[in-house]
């Protein structure tokens, strides 16, 4: 077992490396990607096993009114299984998926075959739990289809046998070429401005500039990385509370000086937790009223009061500090006074008598010019300098060169 420090260093390095590469590495592998102007596409398809052991093939084409939506089962934060949409690229042979097709209007029913108004046919297997027809308006299951009904079709828990990602015909460097997509090929639609966005093959329109290449997988794992970040950040709060509890608990047990503040800390934590319990209750209930009282009447008032005191400290600090001792100090004071008064209604009140013709000399307009022009220039320079320092500091954190807690 490695020491906790080594584990921390390794996790920090890997997480940092992922975030850097996520920014640097494009979604498709450089060197193996093809860029061109799309002409035509041949649709992707996939074959699934059906209960009668006859494989069924589905085309993934945008102009198909019954284009299947591919769904996979995932557990949500409440612990419930739900179906979430996925793409053909993210499934493969052996994957278990649910296909949703429609809504469509039934034209005729002939045994297990449903003919839709658009001319497409849907095969169902009566008696099989894997096939289901739904009323999209109510979400209720329909036992049998009748002409004129608007329905949605679902095939559940189907095992994928094969996938065909399709192909695209495009103009690449002035030459016409046909590109067969690989199972992990990513199709990026490029725009004149901004970054490219991933689209499905059937979303490519003739004339689109596309880049197609093998997946670098960084973009696919962004949500997982965001959740990892979320978990770590949330854990930090728990650790902070635990650490505060340890420190204050020791102070209380050993009756060190200020022990009553530690007792107050535990009282505040209990009050906060009690208030949190009723936070999501319906308005009007006692628990919700108690929560709102603690949050709005106590915590909000206390924090507002503390923050308001800053105004008084800032007033005395400004009085003591703003003294014209040098030419630069005079310049700073004059611009500060203009910006201060220009941001209040007194700015307009004092100078608007000059009329629209001389509106450039109104105090609010002079204040705005100071903020928009000299301030912007100075701030940009400052940010460049600060970011250089931040970059160096970030590098030290990433490589665990900074001192860690307990060192």
């Amino acid at each position, binding site marked *: 077992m490695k020491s906790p420090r080594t584990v921390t260093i390794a996790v920090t390095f890997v997480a940092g490396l992922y975030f850097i590469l996520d920014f640097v590495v494009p979604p498709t592998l450089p060197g193996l990607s093809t860029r061109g102007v799309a002409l035509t596409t041949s649709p992707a398809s996939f074959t699934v096993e059906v209960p009668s052991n006859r494989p069924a093939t589905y085309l993934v084409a945008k102009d198909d009114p019954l284009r299947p939506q591919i769904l996979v089962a995932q557990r949500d*934060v409440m612990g419930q299984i739900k179906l979430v949409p996925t793409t053909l690229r993210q499934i493969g042979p052996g994957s278990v998926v649910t296909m949703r097709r429609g809504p469509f209007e039934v034209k005729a029913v002939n045994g297990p075959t449903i003919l839709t108004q658009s001319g497409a046919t849907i095969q169902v297997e009566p008696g099989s739990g894997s096939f289901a027809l739904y009323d999209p308006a109510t979400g209720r299951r329909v036992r049998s289809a009748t002409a004129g009904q608007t329905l949605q079709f679902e095939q559940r828990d189907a095992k994928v046998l094969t996938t065909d990602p399709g192909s695209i015909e495009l103009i690449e460097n002035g030459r016409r070429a046909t590109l067969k997509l690989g199972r992990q090929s990513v199709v990026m639609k490029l725009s004149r401005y901004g970054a490219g966005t991933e689209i499905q093959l059937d979303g490519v329109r003739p004339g689109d500039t596309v880049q197609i290449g093998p997946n670098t997988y960084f973009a696919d794992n962004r949500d997982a990385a965001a959740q990892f970040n979320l978990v770590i950040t949330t854990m930090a709060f728990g650790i902070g509370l635990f650490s505060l509890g340890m420190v204050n608990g020791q102070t209380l047990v050993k009756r060190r000086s200020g022990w009553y503040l530690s007792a107050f800390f535990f009282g505040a934590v209990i009050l906060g937790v009690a208030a949190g319990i009723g936070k*999501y209750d319906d308005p009007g209930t006692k628990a919700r009223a108690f929560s709102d009282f603690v949050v709005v009447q106590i915590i909000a008032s206390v924090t507002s009061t503390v923050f308001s005191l800053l105004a*008084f400290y800032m007033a005395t600090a*400004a009085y003591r500090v703003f003294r014209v001792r040098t030419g630069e100090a005079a310049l700073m004071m004059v611009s500060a006074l203009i910006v*201060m008064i220009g941001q209040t209604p*007194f700015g307009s009140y004092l100078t608007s008598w000059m009329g629209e013709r001389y509106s450039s000399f109104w105090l609010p307009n002079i204040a705005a010019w100071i903020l928009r022009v000299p301030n912007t220039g100075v701030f940009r320079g400052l940010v460049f300098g600060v970011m250089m320092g931040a970059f160096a500091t970030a590098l030290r954190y990433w490589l665990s060169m900074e001192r860690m807690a307990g060192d």
Partner: protein
Amino acid sequence: MTDRTLKSLARLEVIPRRTIYLFLFVACAIPFLVPIRLPLHIWKETRSAFDVTSKCPPGKVIAISSSWVSGSQGENWPQYEAVVAHCMLSNIPFVVFAVDADPMAPQMAEIINQREAKRYGKVYGRDWVNLGLTRGAPLTMGAIGRSVKTVFQTDFQHTSTEDYAKLPLMKQVRTVRDFYCLWAVDYQPDLNWVVFLDPTGNLPVVFACAGIVSPTFYSYVSSGQLKGLMVGTRGAAEYEELLRDTYGKRFDDRDLRGNKLIVPLAFGHLVIIAFIVAGNIGMAARRRQKAAEDNR
């Protein structure tokens, strides 16, 4: 100038801080007791923010990141209520969420949402949804842009965001493409919103920030990365003025804080400016007094 006058003026250099506190308190309290109305100059940044929101087309939703809490409510409260009033007056649906904020943030926002909803006859779930709090910026911002319901699987009252019977608005909120613009209302909104929420840079982003941090955002307005900026209580008061001009009597400004707080703020600023000037007069008088003594 006589020695006596110089001596009197020199005292202005060391005014006791309690005197400053008293003057500031009285100056800020007077407008609460005596109603005073002052003319407002609408800044370009506030007007741009207003125009961006006004142009929201039907079928689109405005996203509001409301991460402020009671500490900065003096500035963020009037800003947030002005934005919410605008959305409700224009029948623009909105989703509100907080990222890396105090756990109180969704509750603070909801107090305003529900009060404004009563005025304009809006219904929770159909006209707005409060998605609650999440953490982990800036990566979470990118995740919201890719899939709102993956990050916010429930609203702030733990109703599933896929329960369209209770939250019909969520049917049309999937990714950043369903947003018309993002408002970030906070003491110091996170600039990562500009970079991460919509990496293509197409989504207009508007900030509402505290006055003291506003100089850091002007460079992003001039570069076009921010489409508007509402600065402090002044910005909120200007926004209310624009709402009044646009919607006339339909705009219910009872209890809105922008115009109420701008006057005490202006008086407070005047007192601070007066003391700064007094301090400098005192310093100049003491210097002259010292020079006169040295010459003798």
